[in-house]
């Protein structure tokens, strides 16, 4: 078995080689996961913030449920989405199974609870500080959501990045609804799983390292944008 240094240099070699098949897989991975995280953020950020500011009977129960949904097993999500999109399922007519769209849907289901739960936490802390002022100037509880999201945007970056981490690393759901079809729905994680099952462990590790390098790149871009915005804005 090769050691970690050689695996890492293999990974660099893979990226460097510019193999178009590999790059197509990398790009599809990024496309699917970034799309899923953006959709999850559009849903989860306001939802989490609303949960943070609202007061209704059973709110604690909802919070526990959302927290628990962070533990949704990918395979189960994959099956759920599969059952919906299958030709035998209610949405079969859409013919989405074994397409990137199906993979995005599955990841949205997986990531939205994570973004929601973490957003709830961040916004609850901020709301403790802002709440009286915002109510005083006439905003209803729900009307404070956009303000809190905006002022908490730097802290929320980590919540969204956590969602991205889950999406980009995930294999159980996308392999069920995507089918890991070569040239169509094959992404980094399913490739890694395939190479592992072929016993090509060091290739799998090298691909994993490539995936990680991509994740670092995405995080670095987001981090830099955040840093930039923070210098302009007033943290």
């Amino acid at each position, binding site marked *: 078995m090769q050691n970690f240094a050689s695996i890492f240099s293999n990974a660099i070699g893979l990226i460097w080689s510019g193999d178009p098949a590999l790059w197509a897989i990398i790009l599809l991975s990024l496309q699917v996961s970034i799309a899923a995280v953006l959709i999850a953020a559009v849903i989860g950020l306001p939802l989490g913030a609303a949960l943070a500011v609202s007061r209704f009977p059973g709110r604690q129960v909802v919070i526990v449920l959302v927290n628990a949904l962070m533990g949704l097993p990918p395979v189960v999500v994959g099956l759920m989405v599969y059952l919906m999109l299958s030709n035998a399922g209610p949405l079969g007519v859409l013919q989405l199974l074994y397409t990137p769209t199906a993979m995005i849907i599955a990841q949205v289901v997986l990531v939205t609870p994570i973004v929601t739960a973490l957003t709830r936490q961040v916004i609850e802390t901020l709301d403790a500080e802002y709440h*009286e002022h915002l109510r*005083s100037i006439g905003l209803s509880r729900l009307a404070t959501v956009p*303000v809190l999201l905006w002022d908490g945007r730097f802290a929320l970056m980590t919540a969204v990045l956590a969602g991205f981490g889950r999406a980009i690393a995930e294999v159980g759901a996308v392999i069920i609804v995507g089918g890991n079809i070569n040239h169509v729905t094959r992404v980094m994680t399913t490739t890694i799983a395939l190479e592992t099952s072929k016993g090509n462990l060091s290739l799998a590790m090298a691909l994993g390292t490539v995936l990680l390098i991509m994740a670092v790149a995405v995080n670095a871009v987001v981090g830099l944008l955040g840093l930039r915005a923070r210098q302009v804005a007033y943290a």
Partner: protein
Amino acid sequence: MRDTAAHDLTVVPIRGEDTGIPILTATNLLLDKGDTALLDIPRLQVQNHGPTLIMGPNGAGKSLLLRVLHGLIRPTRGQVSLAEPFDQAMVFQRPVLLRRSVAGNVDFVLKSAGIPRRHRKARVARALAQAGLTDLARQSARSLSGGEQQKLALVSALARKPDILFLDEPTSNLDPTATQSIEQLIAQANRTGTKVIMVTHDAGQAKRIGGEVIFMNKGRVIEQTPIQHFLQSPKSDAARHYLAGGLLI
């Protein structure tokens, strides 16, 4: 903020002292926390004439009362009723500033009051000028000095031209000159139809602002009298003791 005519301040504008009509009535107020009553006020009425000053020792319940009257805290029991659905604004003892620029904070307050964008720019500029903060308009509001923050919060609230303005020790961190000009702004707001309900520990200030005093102690309203009566002949021991501390001023 230079040379605001200091002597104006003693002319306290109380409109029609006898024609006052109650604009705010609290009945049966009780605010509990565990087994202690933080507020216990069977009846409190505030008239529309002149400022109302709330005084009393630390921990008397002044800030809690303001919050209850303003509708931020729902009391355990009792209610607060307004004569009309008045616009209200409040400046907190510890002003809360959003993570935005100085101008952005004022703008946000005005926007929340439904003031259209085209009018806001001029009003923001005017408010900042009143607070002497024009030069700091683009600075982060949260990096302002303590006094600057307090002035910012006050002029933001004033810029909304509320019907009722709750002020919680609004000049506690201000220098003497700034205190003067803020007192003038308060007096002016009062003249132009804003009902001011203000907490202060400063007997001198209370005298300059004028109006009536609600004196609180241990969550109760001990007396409610015009400020001159209160300063000259407080009815309760608590008030006498409270004022005694200030005699050296």
